[in-house]
């Protein structure tokens, strides 16, 4: 019993304010755009130089000059703007984004993130991740709470090569919503059917409590 990536995306979407400027990482985080609460409209930024793009076009109607950072086709909306890569990362690095939501291999209670390299073997690829973690006012992570073989992904210290130091402020996991405050994991929400002990057992650093822990309630999707 855990949230699907779609459900994690839904939960992450609930925290995005009306009018927020948001960058969604390649892959599952891209789904966040689909779940904007009624009456709120975020403005999405993609590293390759578009602000305020719309949803995917119908198949066959793609224009391959109009893609997002994941190389997927997107569409125009009233108010879309194009710009080059240096201006795009000025938006990122300059702190103009409100929220960035990224995937993760590991997150540490220090806020350190590892999401770009699984080690010295294979082909390393970093893309815009190292820039994004220093750019947005809030850097959130969307991730399964544990690896496919059941090992914790929320750790005291990351073991994989870092993407950034002390950069993550909130984790939307498949089991819980956890803030990172002052180098500690602070549990905000967890699945109601899951005990705190069970959640702690799947987390390799202490889950601190500040006030009540709400139930993590997500619709069937």
């Amino acid at each position, binding site marked *: 019993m855990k949230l699907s990536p779609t459900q994690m995306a839904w939960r992450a979407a609930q925290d995005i304010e*009306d*009018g927020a*400027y948001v960058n969604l990482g390649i892959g599952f985080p891209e789904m966040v755009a689909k779940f904007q609460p009624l009456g709120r*409209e975020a*403005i999405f*930024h993609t590293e390759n130089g578009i*602000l*305020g793009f719309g949803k995917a076009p119908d198949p066959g109607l793609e224009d391959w000059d109009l893609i997002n950072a994941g190389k997927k086709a997107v569409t*125009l*909306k*009233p*108010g*879309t*703007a*194009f*710009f080059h890569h*240096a*201006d795009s*990362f*000025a*938006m*990122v*690095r*300059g*702190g*103009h*984004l409100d929220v960035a939501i990224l995937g993760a291999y590991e997150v540490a209670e220090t806020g350190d993130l590892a999401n770009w390299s699984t080690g010295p073997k294979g082909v390393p690829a970093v893309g815009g991740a190292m820039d994004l973690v*220093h*750019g947005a006012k809030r850097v959130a992570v969307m991730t399964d709470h544990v690896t496919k073989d059941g090992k914790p992904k929320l750790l005291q210290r990351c073991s994989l090569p870092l993407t950034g130091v002390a950069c993550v402020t909130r984790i939307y996991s498949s089991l819980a919503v956890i803030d990172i405050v002052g180098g500690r994991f602070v549990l905000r929400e967890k699945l109601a059917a899951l005990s705190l002990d069970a959640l702690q057992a799947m987390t390799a650093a202490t889950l601190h409590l500040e006030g009540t822990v709400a139930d993590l309630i997500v619709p069937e999707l």
Partner: protein
Amino acid sequence: MDKTLPDLAAAVAGIPDGATVMIGGFGGSGAPIELIHALIDRFLATGHPRGLTVVNNNAGNGHVGLAALIEAGMMAKLICSFPRSADPVVFTQMYLAGRLELELVPQGTLAERIRAGGAGIPAFYTPTSYGTDLAIGKPVEVFDGRPYVQERWLKADFALIKAHLGDPLGNLTYRMAARNFNPLMCMAAAVTIVQVSRIVAAGEIDPEAVITPGIFVQGVVETPNPAQEEDLNRAGAVYPEVAA
């Protein structure tokens, strides 16, 4: 999202005493005269804001716009490259009287420092000013055998900007060489307030033609037929007008 502001007074209402304010323009072109005058009006009515640090390429001309803001006594410090103009008497008297601090910055360095502020680059190296009085006290480093001066980013609390078209999302276009410092200052200020000749609906500005994307803009106020500083000065204008 609607970043439209109701009027000029509302647009400048939030600027506090002691703020650092970037003001767009190169001489009169691209200078947000109406926003500046609204800020002067507020100061004359309330005594605030005062003690401002202003960033602009110049130091005003005649007795309108930036010169009028200096003349009103609202400015504590000016960061600029070229405090000369056809009629620089306001700045010159205030500066020579020791009532205004001046930080003189080479023009390209000024532009790059502002861009750096907007782009999250805290420092960069430039050949400009190496070996001159304007490099005194700044770190020097040699790259590829050539010496360069380290310069720091420049940020502001507010930017007062003049653009041509704006939409409710804050997307902007400019008019010819009135572009100059304006797009850079939009990036470098925490709160960027823009006067535009016309507010158009989102989507009316071609996405290819947007010069400042709305992410850099917090407020847009429509100001049709904005004054040109040059025209005002040729007409001998003074702001605020002195009662005859």
